[in-house]
């Protein structure tokens, strides 16, 4: 019973496969032969929405999109990298590396750790804390959650992904906000 509750909790959290079964229930693999999932599924993806980095010393981005490459390992772990274009507060190029996990199956929410840098144009503020305009790009460490993500016939579609990240400003911190309205990917 304990095992069932634990598996159910993990399934609800969306971070494990839908394998929460009542004790004694036969696993699907034992009743029917399943196709062997490939270890690596490579793919590409594209997404669009709001992505901005805001702090007391600089503001970057706001609207735009990205394209990237992704490796899904054992249908569970995700490695991905993308580069994009943002505009509104200048023309900026966000570069994001991410690693995380997804739930197996049709409904496949995911959670990723992200490392994002914003190159290019921005607004910069010269203040008492930052008496010289900062020239280097911010690098934010954060997370990205995809609660409405689906795997369909070798492709992925995800709606309303959101993420946050922080970057040191010496002194202070800046926050990276990310809201992807839609993300679409294809795996090979």
């Amino acid at each position, binding site marked *: 019973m304990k095992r069932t509750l634990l598996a159910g909790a993990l399934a609800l959290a969306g971070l494990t496969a839908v394998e929460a079964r009542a004790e004694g229930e036969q696993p699907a693999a034992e009743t029917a032969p399943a196709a062997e999932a490939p270890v690596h599924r490579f793919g590409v993806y594209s997404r669009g929405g709001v992505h901005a980095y805001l702090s007391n010393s600089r*503001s970057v981005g*706001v609207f735009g999109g990205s394209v990237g490459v992704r490796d899904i390992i054992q249908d569970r772990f995700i490695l991905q990298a993308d580069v994009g274009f943002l505009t509104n507060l200048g023309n900026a190029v966000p*570069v994001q590396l991410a690693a995380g996990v997804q739930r197996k199956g049709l409904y496949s929410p995911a959670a990723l750790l992200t490392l994002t*840098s914003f*190159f290019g*144009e*921005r607004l910069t*503020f010269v203040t*008492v804390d930052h008496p010289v305009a900062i020239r*280097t790009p911010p690098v934010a460490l954060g997370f990205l959650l995809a609660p409405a993500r689906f795997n369909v016939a070798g492709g992925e579609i995800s709606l309303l992904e959101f993420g946050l990240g922080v970057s040191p400003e010496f002194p202070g911190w800046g926050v990276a906000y990310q809201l992807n309205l839609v993300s679409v990917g294809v795996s090979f």
Partner: protein
Amino acid sequence: MLLAGALLGTAACAPVTPLDTTQLPPIESMIQEIDKDRLMLTVADLVATHKSEEPMDCSLVGANGSVFPELCNLTRVKAGELMYNRLQQLGTLTMSRQVVAKDKLTASNVIAEYKGVKYPEEVVLISAHFDAYYAAADDNSTGVAAVLEIARVLSQYKFDRTLRFVGFDLEEYAYVGSARYVESLREKNDVVLAVNFDSLGYYSDEPGSQQGALGLPAPSQGNFLTVLGNDNSLARVDEISALNDAFDSTIMFGIVTSGLGNNAGSAPLLRSDHGPFWLSGHQAIFITDTAYFRNPGYHNPKDTIDVLDPVRFHRAVQISAAAIAYWAGGPR
């Protein structure tokens, strides 16, 4: 794309040039001559001048005049004459007016030039618009008074570069005067830096008195002087900030907008006569109290002299004069 990102990132990492500290002692001595009482008297004279003039015929703006009543309360002729006469009375400046008639509007800019001794072909332009709405104490009698006082003090010294003091006409009608001036620079582009003043005298220590916007954070108290630049003039923002620290002049907030400054999110930062300079690729600095982000009298009858802060206004003009002297290569 990665390469583009790397290149853009590299461009954002340009080195910072430290201040030439040998220039500072004579500059510090010179800015003590900026006279607070004289500044406020000039503002009072300009306010009286605006009040005494019949507003410009606003039939050109059509129905906009009823939506934006300030458009029908613009005065400019007498203030332009006052600016011209005060600069001429200094006796050391070469005076002219640039009159450009086009598209139903005639702009008449005031120009006064003080030749540099080492690089006379390089011009540092110091400007403010003299056309204004209502009594126009802050916007922009303070800016015009700053130009006149800086001209009075700096014209007593020698500088490497030429100083050109300019009063722009019709700023309130979409920067007509400065746009036409910048167009004329196509024939002879000698301006190496433009310093524009627009609204310098309104300050408040009240928490919440300063407004910001998405991507444009600002301190809560509207008690600071703002200096704006774009990527072309980023180093100038750093330099005036360093001069402000060296002279402990005032609370300063610098903003550097990206590229030429014509991004949708930073559009409010383009709204004065530095805009045409930025868009044409010139180095330009905009010095302001942030106007409508702070002043409830912006473009309405409450823009009166009694709400100005003479002490902070004086400091703003002092640090501006210091920076102009530094950039012009002097005083000698």
